């Protein structure tokens, strides 16, 4: 067997490139807020840079008959435009920049993660939770700003007998609070599980190849790894889409509370 054990979790480790210093705390290790530029930060920066540069470069020509690059940018724009309009309603178009940014960031971060030796930003729960909380807080703050106390009607469905109304209201509140959790957990879980499974099958190929005559059986996990790579590309796109659609669904609730 190989000397180095195969660790499927190793790919998610965070390395520090350079430290930005520690703020607060009393000097003992582990106290205060330690800021550092990590590989996660690097890939977030690369993701945002790639999106920004591509969109600026491809739409720079402003051709009436678009070239291939401009066509792709316009298709992405039209895709999210249609999604926001049909799912969240016409009034939600002021949130188009939010939905488009989230979609592009998740999509490109997931696709970056498909390169060998690249770090996958969305495989860390803290990143997906931050994005889900942005959406959740937007919904709550905008909902109260626009509808005032009427926003609370979201928790009181109409047409329910008065004697079970308190129970239903508590269930609705729990259901509403569970949104950011399921929103973030889904993206994180899909990406994490996909990458671990890919690594495990890749490790099986190496282990079988180093086991002498059994090396011929390495074809089987290799085939699985190839198939799973295709599936992972599908998941990368699909999860970005699902995240954006659910953002639209939640924004719809903020604008039109009450079922």
């Amino acid at each position, binding site marked *: 067997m190989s000397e180095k054990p195969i660790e499927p979790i190793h790919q998610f480790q965070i390395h520090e490139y350079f430290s930005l210093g520690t703020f607060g705390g009393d000097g003992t290790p582990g106290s205060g807020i330690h800021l550092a530029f990590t590989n996660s930060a690097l890939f977030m920066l690369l993701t945002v840079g790639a999106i920004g540069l591509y969109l600026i470069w491809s739409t720079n020509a402003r051709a009436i008959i678009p070239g291939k690059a401009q066509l792709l940018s316009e298709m992405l724009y039209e895709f999210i435009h249609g999604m926001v309009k049909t799912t969240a309603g016409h009034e939600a178009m002021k949130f188009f920049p939010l939905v488009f940014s989230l979609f592009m960031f998740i999509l490109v971060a997931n696709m970056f993660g498909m390169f060998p030796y690249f770090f996958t930003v969305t495989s860390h729960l803290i990143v997906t939770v931050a994005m889900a909380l942005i959406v959740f807080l937007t919904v709550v703050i905008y909902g109260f700003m626009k509808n005032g106390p009427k926003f609370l009607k979201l928790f009181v469905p109409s047409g329910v007998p008065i004697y079970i109304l308190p129970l239903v209201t508590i*269930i609705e509140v729990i259901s509403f609070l569970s949104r950011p959790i399921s929103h973030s957990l889904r993206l994180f879980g899909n990406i994490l599980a996909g990458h671990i499974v890919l690594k495990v099958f890749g490790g099986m190929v190496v282990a079988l190849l180093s086991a002498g005559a059994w090396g011929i059986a390495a074809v089987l996990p290799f085939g699985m790894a190839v198939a799973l790579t295709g599936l992972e590309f599908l998941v990368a796109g699909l999860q970005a889409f699902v995240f954006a659609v659910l953002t639209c669904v939640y924004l719809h609730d903020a604008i039109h509370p009450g079922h």
Partner: protein
Amino acid sequence: MSRGFRLASEFVAAIIVGAGLGLLVDYFLPTRPWGLIALVLLGFAAGVLNVIRATAEMNAESAVPKDTPALPDDEDE
């Protein structure tokens, strides 16, 4: 797979929130352990509600639009 994952996460998330709220209630009120028990059960109910809503959404997405003709018209061409 993504549909199944979506339903599972909707369900689990509601139970997590229910348990969290239950622990919070028990921490501040002398009701231990009844707050946790009641709110986990309510979280379970909210999870079922989430799953029903998500399924209804999925069904609405995959349903045939109402304005599609029942049979294709050859004569229009």
